């Protein structure tokens, strides 16, 4: 119990320090003399982090939209409200499942791969080499990965939102006999700026959490731990990311919808 508390305190403290350093280096490194190469590094990471995840996110979100509509239809039909599958899909997709599912997929793809990469770089002395070459590892490695993950998470969230609505659309039109125009109209009617924007905020924050946890776990590998340490860092990253995502999602949803945090 005591051990667990200490571990948790070390984790939160370490993450906070890494967050502070990342923010301060982000501002300094993207502008100025070396800004061009820093931006190039971010772009390279965006391709690596985001592109591979796109097909999986599309597949999962399409299926969830499709399934949700099919499952809700009989219940709604009892009240003669079968058309409301469009609203339910839009609410669930844009507010919750878009950012959350994209985040979980990205934790598996990008989070695990970043943790494994940085952990391996520790064991091959590459991190130490950077330090003695007077190149700050946070600036050089963490900043591009964090920025790229945040940007790509926001983009993936939009894709995930739309795909889920499309999944519901396919069920609604082909199976439930709602006309395409009606489905489109109902979706737009439900979709508010707040629903869309809070989803994007969640997505960006999830990206920040995933990439920070991955970088922190990767850099926490000790050189002597070797491949075992890298393996553990990868697993811990995925588990902690998913827990962090769901808990953060709960807190944000409470803030946005129970306490009206986002309303002016």
């Amino acid at each position: 119990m005591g051990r667990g508390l200490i571990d948790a305190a070390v984790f939160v403290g370490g993450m906070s320090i890494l967050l502070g350093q990342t923010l301060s280096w982000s501002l300094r490194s993207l502008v100025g003399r070396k800004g061009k190469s820093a931006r190039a590094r971010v772009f390279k990471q965006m391709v690596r982090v985001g592109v591979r995840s796109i097909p999986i996110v599309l597949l999962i979100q399409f299926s969830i939209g499709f399934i949700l509509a099919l499952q809700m239809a009989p219940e709604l039909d009892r009240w003669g409200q079968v058309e409301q599958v469009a609203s339910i899909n839009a609410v669930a997709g844009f507010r919750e499942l878009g950012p959350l599912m994209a985040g979980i997929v990205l934790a598996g793809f990008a989070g695990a791969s970043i943790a494994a990469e940085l952990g391996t770089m520790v064991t091959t002395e590459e991190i130490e080499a950077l330090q003695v070459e007077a190149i700050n590892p946070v600036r050089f490695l963490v900043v591009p990965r964090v920025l790229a993950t945040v940007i790509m998470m926001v983009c993936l969230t939009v894709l995930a939102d739309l795909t889920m609505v499309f999944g519901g659309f396919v069920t609604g039109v082909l199976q439930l006999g709602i006309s395409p125009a009606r489905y489109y109209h109902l979706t737009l009617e439900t979709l508010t700026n707040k629903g869309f924007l809070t989803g994007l905020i969640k997505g960006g924050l999830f990206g920040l959490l995933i990439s920070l946890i991955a970088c922190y776990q990767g850099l926490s590998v000790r050189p002597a731990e070797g491949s075992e340490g890298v393996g553990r860092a990868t697993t811990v990253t995925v588990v902690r990311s998913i827990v962090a995502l769901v808990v953060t999602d709960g807190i944000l949803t409470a803030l946005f919808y129970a306490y009206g945090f986002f309303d002016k």
Partner: protein
Amino acid sequence: MSEQEPIIKVERLIKRFGEQTVLNGIDLEVYPGETMVIMGGSGCGKSTLLRIMIGSIKPTAGKVMVLGENLAELNERLLDELRKRIGILFQSGALFNSMTVGENVALPLREHTKLHPDVIDLQVTIKLNQVSLLQARDKMPAQISGGMKKRAGLARALAMDPQILFYDEPSAGLDPVTSSQIDELIIKLSKGLGVTSVVVTHEMDSAFRIADRICMLNRGKVLKVGKREEFEALRDAENGQGFSEDELLMRQFLRGDAEGPISSEEDKGGFFQELGIFSLR
């Protein structure tokens, strides 16, 4: 040599990791242009000493001066400025695996200088030529051999024209021929460029080939600092008669004998005593 100011000065250095004292009162001076080999068995603290001299870890007590700067007084930014004036060859070469050999060498120049890309290109060519590795310029680290990785690491260490080069076990994991080639390279660089070299190794042949002076460590203490010839005399002595305990210990290490004070120290070692089964033996 002693009229010169030392380029590295270590005074009463102590390093503890928890309960364990790894370095226990080290004094060492390295003079400009010389090759100092720090030698000792596994776990004698030589790698820790190297990491303290490059500012990677902080000492528990004592003073370390490098290029006239007291490491303890430097903040991270000033330490980085100092690091630009030294080069380190890591045991594995520590190349950045996601970049080609050429990009590895170019990285410090791109990060720390305002040189035009064409000039950086030229510099990379020169550095790779110095270590005879120009043909591997566009290869990835995974595609080249262990010896080539070390040479590439050396080219990267040379990129900023350092005043001091640190080598961590340069011959570890290499076959004898490649190992001699690396030794030749170290000699060529230190004599040709006038770079001060600090080499940590436990390979006797290599140490005697490259050293001007040798510092022998044992259990966190300096046994002896002296010219290479003094150590050669110790090694080649017919027998150990009239030698002090320390000298016998060094002689055993230098000759690689299985029998001697090192082995009997281990026999006596506290391990069994700590377990409380010493009486069983």
